[in-house]
């Protein structure tokens, strides 16, 4: 039992004041980025309905809810979309823009471009490129000259496919394959072949002829490949 009377009262008051000041000081020493005033009593703050009833001003929930529609709609969407399906959707929706670009494009019936080799055999031997290069090297010239002569002698039209080895990144390899095909086309045009009979396409690193991670295999994949195509009447569109 503590006894003391008036001096005790004074000490207690001083202690209370001191403790109050000290507690204020302590709050500042925490590792704090923000102090969010929280309700002290554990009340239910909010109820979130995770199905389609998201609050319209809650953007994150709205996006989540819309994305959740994917779950429900998906069975119907997949049933409707086959390999040809989405192409048809694109045609239906594109309307004017598609027919405009059709007039600019040389439309050829190219079946299975960048598809597996079976069913799309090359019409001439391929030419090859150095790593990361689209320059026509010396070894390619004789083949290209023969190809040029063959094309000039007949009415064939060909597609020039540009391919890369798998070492680069996917997107850059698509651009590189495109440049390889263009380089070959430019060479052939320069040697007298009519540009209208040459189409180019890039297959990037998507259609390798071999899969080993060896210099020998990579060299085989860095190629331009020649495929015969049929001409079809230009699509005059709607």
């Amino acid at each position: 039992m503590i006894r003391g009377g008036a001096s005790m009262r004074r000490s207690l008051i001083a202690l209370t004041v001191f403790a109050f000041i000290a507690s204020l000081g302590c709050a500042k020493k925490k590792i704090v980025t923000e102090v969010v005033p929280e309700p002290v009593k554990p009340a239910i703050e909010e109820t979130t309905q995770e199905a389609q009833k998201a609050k319209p001003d809650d953007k994150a929930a709205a996006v989540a809810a819309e994305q959740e529609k994917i779950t429900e709609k998906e069975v119907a969407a997949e049933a409707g979309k086959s390999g040809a399906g989405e192409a048809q959707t694109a045609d239906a929706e594109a309307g004017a823009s598609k027919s405009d670009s059709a007039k600019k494009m040389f439309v050829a019936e190219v079946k299975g471009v960048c598809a597996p080799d079976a069913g799309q055999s090359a019409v001439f031997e391929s030419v090859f490129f150095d790593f990361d290069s689209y320059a026509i090297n010396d070894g390619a010239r004789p083949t290209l000259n023969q190809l040029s002569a063959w094309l000039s002698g007949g009415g064939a039209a060909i597609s020039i496919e540009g391919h890369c080895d798998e070492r680069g990144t996917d997107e850059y390899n698509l651009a590189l394959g495109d440049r390889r095909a263009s380089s070959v086309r430019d060479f052939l045009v320069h040697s007298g072949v009519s540009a209208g009979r040459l189409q180019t396409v890039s297959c990037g690193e998507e259609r390798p002829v071999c899969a080993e991670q060896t210099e020998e295999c990579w060299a085989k994949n860095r190629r331009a490949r020649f495929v015969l195509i049929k001409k079809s009447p230009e699509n005059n569109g709607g």
Partner: protein
Amino acid sequence: MKSVKAITAIILLLFVLLASAGAIIRIDITSPERKLPIAISRLAGPGGDEISNIVAADLHYTGIFELIDGRFFIEPSEEPFGRTNWTAIGAEAVLKGRVKTISGDIRATVFLYDAADGTAMLHKEYESSTTLLRQLAHGIANDAYGRLTGKNGVFRSKIAFVASSGHDRELCVMDWDGGRIKRLGVKGAVIPAPRWSPDGRRLIYSAQRDGVWGIYSFDFDSMKEKLVVSSRGTLLAGDFFPDGDRVIYSSSEKGHPSIYIYSTTAGETRKITSSRGIDVSPAVSPDGKKVAFVSDRGGSPQVYTMDGNGYNITRITFEGAYNTSPVWSPSGERIAYVGRHEGKNQIFTILPDGSDSRRLTGEGNNESPSFSPDGRFIAFSSDRRGRKEIFVMRADGSGQRSAGGMAASSPRWSPN
């Protein structure tokens, strides 16, 4: 007498200090001095285990929490929260709750307690159909993360990617942790990485169909695909500008792959680079003022930046002979890219002025980096396990692990 008063004063003072010590838990995530010890108790009720496991996995992956092992828990899930049961095992924050099923729906009631003073920092109810249990759990993790750090969690975000099946490519979307993989029904022979619109409601991507390249957009609201722009040559979708209207892309329609901007509202295209080589892979900075891209105009593929109108082209990578695939962090503070290192592709980050390049990966070939919406994580593709698949890691390179388990590449993290 005096010594007794002094001791009393000291004891009372200590008591006041201790009582105020635990009133606010916060973690400074930019420079955490230590990991916050948190206990995730199994939610009582059906599905409670699965929910708790998802919340624990989400919080653990951030790298700023120390999850206390459940084997040390004293307090059973069904019993009410008793502060000392948790302080005894070193927990500073405790997640507890219960789950009920009501005719095909689940309702979870969740509390996040501050163990020092027993107050509930979070008390919330979550309800959804049972099929959305994972998203519900990710929402709990977001809220717990938000209360403890003051920042938005990204556990409800998505990763879009391109799945491979033989020679076919198909667009897919999955949760950030690899859960709930969904096929979008968009297929093609070649589909490079899709890009998200700024509002997260669309994807744009390039696809080659019947030998013709086009840039398409896929709308999540309508679940439909629409052609955006098509032309001769190879078209590769680059990025959206923050206005969600202009799209930047590369096209070889005029011979050499160059960079173009297409305005969907105006229906107009503008060519903004001209070089005799390859300009490709444009990426717009978060503020829309700068574009990073790849060009071989210097003799080898390197990363450059330029203004949105094509002016002020500046090279920023100078190490290595092959640097491609630039992407900006959401704050615009760093650019991630792919560089060749000892014969393989690896992920680097660099400051936009070209300084301070850091390599983050080392095993196998690692490509296609993409930042999470808070910039704390990076999704990428890796072939370290034999075939290309999607991986995620923290932005400092730690915590590398696979997500989704499919043969896939070209991941892109959603913006929200």
